[in-house]
């Protein structure tokens, strides 16, 4: 499985295959071998605890797009890198929800101008934040859903007017 986290050194992808991991910072790939997992234990009020074969325990809690971890007496957290969804080849005047989710930020205002690639809204889905970007240079014609609303897959959220180059 693959995950992507924000770090002070930029976004880093983590590819997990049992206890063998690969980290990719976009420049290099680092291979890491952790101790094999002996058991995964349920533990309130956390998401759970991983017991490694050497006896060390990793306690973790997922809160929206952030994961908190506790290991060897140290605590840290990572935010999952928000995915950037630019509907690059889209020519449709509608911004449709690529997945079911909740609108947690809305930058669109009627008449506001967006360059291609600028973030129009952020959709939270599966505890991930997804930045939905303008597919082309445009102005906002209509806003169909507001912050806090839940939208279904393929539901139109914003309607755009394309600006001709």
């Amino acid at each position: 499985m693959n995950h992507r986290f924000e770090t002070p050194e930029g976004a880093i992808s983590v590819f997990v295959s049992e206890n063998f991991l690969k980290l990719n910072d976009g420049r290099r790939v680092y291979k890491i071998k952790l101790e094999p997992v002996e058991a995964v234990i349920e533990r309130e009020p956390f998401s759970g605890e991983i017991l490694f074969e050497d006896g060390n325990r990793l306690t973790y809690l997922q809160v929206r797009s952030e994961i908190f971890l506790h290991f060897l007496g140290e605590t840290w957290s990572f935010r999952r890198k928000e995915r950037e969804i630019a509907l690059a080849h889209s020519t449709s005047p509608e911004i449709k929800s690529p997945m079911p989710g909740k609108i947690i930020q809305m930058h669109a205002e009627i008449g506001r101008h967006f360059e291609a690639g600028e973030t129009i809204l952020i959709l939270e889905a599966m505890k991930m934040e997804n930045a939905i970007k303008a597919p082309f240079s445009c102005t906002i014609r209509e806003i169909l859903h507001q912050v806090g609303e839940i939208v279904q897959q393929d539901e139109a959220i914003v309607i755009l007017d394309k600006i001709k180059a």
Partner: protein
Amino acid sequence: MSSIKKILIANRGEIAVRVIRTAKRLGIKSVAVYSDADRDSLYVRLADEAIYIGSSEPKQSYLNQNAILNAISETGSDAVHPGYGFLSENAEFAEKLIQKGIKFLGPKPASIRAMGDKIGSRLLVAKYQVPVVPGYEGEDQSMERFMIEAKKIGFPIMAKASAGGGGKGMRRIESIEELEANILSAKRESISSFGDDRILLEKYITNPRHVEFQIFGDTHGNVIHLHERDCSLQRRHQKVVEESPAPNFPSELKKKMADAAVQAAKAVSYEGAGTVEFILGESGEFYFLEMNTRLQVEHPVTEMTTGLDLVELQIRVAEGQRVPEIPVQHGHAIEVRVYAEDPSNQFLPSIGKIHALSFPEGDHIRVDSGVVSGSEISIYYDPMIAKIIVWSEQRESAIDKMIQVLEETIVFGPITNISFLRALVDTEGYRLGNVSTHFIASHEPSLNEKKVNLHTRLALAGIASSITKDSDPWIVSEESNQ
């Protein structure tokens, strides 16, 4: 005197929880007061009654005497526990309570006033043969006079701007030969910083320790001490680790300091719980710093080593009972203050929601906390999450126990000082008891070293994320396309 039936706690957080716990055990009703920010706080839920007293800014609520006085009459409370901070050392508030026939669980207003004046209190206790830091703070600013006074005080000496602060106009002077040049330079700096070139001299104490005595007085004129606490591990005058007994503390020295502490309390006919703080020098010289006329944050280490409940003792003394015999000091107790602050970023407070919180449980582990999973650390109050106190027969085993407890303490949400505390109590210097108020500052960089590096942190985040099954098919497909 009559017995207390209902206590209003004019405070919040962990100390309110701690007072309510004793009240419940004694069958006394408890009343909490709360601000907007504390509406859902643990202590509000634990109290028998809770009264809203105002908005989150302390001035509008916990320092608002009228709102608290109204809450007292509304609930028919017959006593007030002020906790620490807020109104705990406010003589005017104590006076208003007494006028209304409400018992204030603290000393007489006159004692609060006498000890609240930091210069006046030193002059006062000095009359009772309690040693105070030798110094000179006179109108005569001639160099001849400074020479005479400096010889009387003894070197090293600190010259400070009378109007000073922030280290400006301060000079450490090692010998008589250095005196004149340093005083002149301190005067120049002082006049340019404060527009005032008056200088005072004070004995400089090398590697000072902070040792304090818990004092208890009753309404019959008896004053006892409940032994000492060493609070030398401080950061910018904030205590970080406290313990009892003090390490490397000869019994003859302890006896002298205990006598001085009782004497200082008697100087103000002290009633109730108080703490006499001393600065202790390398060669066993000690000086009165101040007396705090309230229950201190670090009182649990005294409770763990004497078996007494100091809040109960405050209640009994207010009811007119006599203080007990001096208790035997047994074993060793250490307290650390867990804060929502970032040690790697100048200890700035780290506010926000505590998503999950867990402390280990066991014999001789005590956690005094006012928060639970889901609580909010707000900008309005001290960002303390908990006090962790451990007890063991010996100091060494108490340190080991504290390290284990800190390693198993988990706070997810705000950044905390937990691993900093763990590194601190595990230093060789602390284990040897070679403590001073400069200890933390001189060890700080090494106390922030991390054991788990970024790559391991990421790998562990990856493995935990894979198990939470909140994986992301979108990224997987992106990778497989490459």
